[in-house]
C-alpha cells in the first residue's frame, strides 16, 4: 500500500499552492471547458496557437490539488510545442497514469510526480482532466480569433 506522500509529492503541493499560468488568456485561439461531474472540478483552458505552435497557454478554475497541479504542470510543458508534440505528450501522459501501479512507467520529468495517482484509482480522473480538456480544445474551432 502506497503512502500518502507518494500522491501528494512536494512538487504537486507546490503547483497546487502556486499554480503556474493560472489566468485567462485574451486573444486565445482555442479554449475548452473541462468538467468532472463526479466531484464538480471545473477548468477552462486557453491556448494561443500560431504557425502550428503553442505560443501561450493558461487555465482557470477550481479543483483538487491533483487536478490543479496537473493543469499547472501541463501548461508549463506545452509552451513552445507544436500541436503534434502536444498530442504525443498527451498520449505519453495518458499511458503513464493508466499503467497498473506494479508496472514501470517512463520518466516524464516533473510530470512523473503524477504517476502516484495510479495507487488511487478514483483520482486518475483528477490528473487527466486538464489533458482531456486539451484534446477538446484542439477539436474546437478557433473561437476567439474570429470574434
Amino acid at each position, binding site marked *: 500500500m502506497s503512502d500518502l506522500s507518494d500522491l501528494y509529492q512536494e512538487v504537486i503541493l507546490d503547483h497546487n499552492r502556486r499554480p503556474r499560468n493560472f489566468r485567462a488568456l485574451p486573444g486565445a485561439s482555442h479554449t475548452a471547458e473541462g468538467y468532472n461531474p463526479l466531484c*464538480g472540478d471545473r477548468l477552462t483552458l486557453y491556448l494561443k496557437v500560431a504557425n502550428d505552435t503553442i505560443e501561450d497557454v493558461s487555465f482557470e478554475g477550481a479543483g483538487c*490539488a491533483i487536478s490543479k497541479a496537473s493543469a499547472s504542470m501541463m501548461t508549463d510543458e506545452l509552451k513552445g510545442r507544436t500541436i503534434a508534440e502536444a498530442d504525443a505528450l498527451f498520449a505519453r501522459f495518458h499511458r503513464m497514469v493508466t499503467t497498473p501501479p506494479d508496472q514501470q512507467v517512463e520518466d516524464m520529468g516533473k510530470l512523473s510526480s503524477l504517476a502516484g495517482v495510479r495507487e488511487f484509482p478514483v483520482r486518475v480522473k483528477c490528473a487527466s482532466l486538464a489533458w482531456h480538456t486539451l484534446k477538446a480544445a484542439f477539436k474546437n474551432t478557433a473561437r476567439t480569433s474570429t470574434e
Partner: protein
Amino acid sequence: MSATAPVLDLKRVRADFPILQREVRGRPLVYLDNAATSQKPAAVLDAIDRYYRTTNANVHRGVHELSERATEAYEGARERIRRFFNAASTREIVFTRNATEGINLLAFAFARPRLKPGDEVLISAMEHHSNIVPWQLACEATGAVLKVAPIDDRGELMLDAFEALLSPKTRLVAITWMSNALGTITPVRDIVRLAHARGIPVMLDASQAAYHMRIDVQALDCDFLVATGHKLYAPTGIGIFYGKEAHLEAMPPFMGGGDMIASVSFSCSTWNVLPYKFEAGTPHIEGAIGLHAALDYIDGIGFDAIGTHERDLLQYATRQVESLDGVRIVGTAREKASIVSFVMDGVHPHDIGTIVDREGVAIRTGHHCAQPVMERFGIPATARASIAMYNSREDIDALGLALRKAREVFA
C-alpha cells in the same frame, strides 16, 4: 432529560453490525458516510438469507406452499412499513426501487396528467437532484414552470418566501424533509399547513429524515412521502412510496406489466387494485423482507434513544470540526440532524477525502447530488461526515485526527 430517558446501548448496537468489525487500510473502519447509505445489522442479513434458504418463490402467483409463504412475507413487510409511518392502510404503501423512483412515479402518474402550460411545481433550493430533475422533465413535457423556494445563509428554508411562492397556479409542492448536503430539517408541518390552506398537495422526500426520526404521515397529513430502504439499514433496491388512497385511486398506473393488471386483452386491460396498480413485474421480495427486519431493528432500539445519541454525536462532531483552523461548516440550520458538511481553506474536499480514507475514515466529498446547494454557497464541493446510530465519539475523534493530518499535508 430525566433519568428515565432512553439510552442507546452503543456497544450492543455496534456488535449488531458485522461490517464494523472489519479493518480498512489496517485500521478499524470508521464509517461516516451514512447519508449515502447505511450499514446493515445482522438481523437484516439473516432475514434475507433465511428467505432464500427456506421460502424463495414468486409472489401473488402460485397456489403452492412456498409462493403463499413468500407472498405472506412480502405483504407482511408492507404492513410493517404502514405501521412504521402510521399510514391508514397498506393500500397506500407502494414498493419502489428507491426514493428517486417514487418521485418519478409521482411526476408521471400524478403531476404530468394534471399540469398545464403556466402551472407551477414548487420545490426548495436544497433538493437532491432526484427531486429536481423529474420536475424539470415534467415541466418540459407540459409547459409548466418549476419554482424554487430559497434558503438563507444557514441553509434554512425561507418560509415567508416559500409562502409567497404558493400561487393559484401551484399544483404541487415537493420538498425534502432533511437536506442531504446540509443536514437542515425543514419545517414540514408549516409547509403542509401553508400549502393545504390553498388546496395544494404536498410530497415530502424523507430519504434522509426517515432514519433519524419518527414519521407519522397521518399526523402530518402530507399527501405523498418517499423514502429509501438502504438508508434505513435495509438493502439497496427497495424504496417506499406513500400516497393518500384518494390520490392513488385517481392516478393512472406508472409502469405497465405483470402483477399490476386485473385483466389483459388486446382490446383493453384493466388495472389491479391498490397498491398493486403501481407495482409492475416481479418485485424486490428480499428487499422488502430485509426492510421489514430493518424497521423491527430500528423500533427495537427506538427513535428516542437513536435521536438522543445522534444529537450528542452531531454536537460533538460540530465542535471537533469547528475547532480546526481554516475550517468552515456549511449548513448551520438551527434544526438539523446528523450531517456535518464543511470546507477547509486551501484543501479541496477531494483531497480531504483521500487523506482521511488513508486513516480508515469514510466520508463523502463532492457536490452530494445537490449542485444548486453548492452554487448557493459559492463552493464547488464539500466534505461531509454523516452519522448513524452505530457511530461513536471514537469515530468522531478519528475523523478529527484525520482532518488534522490533511491540514498537515497541505500546511
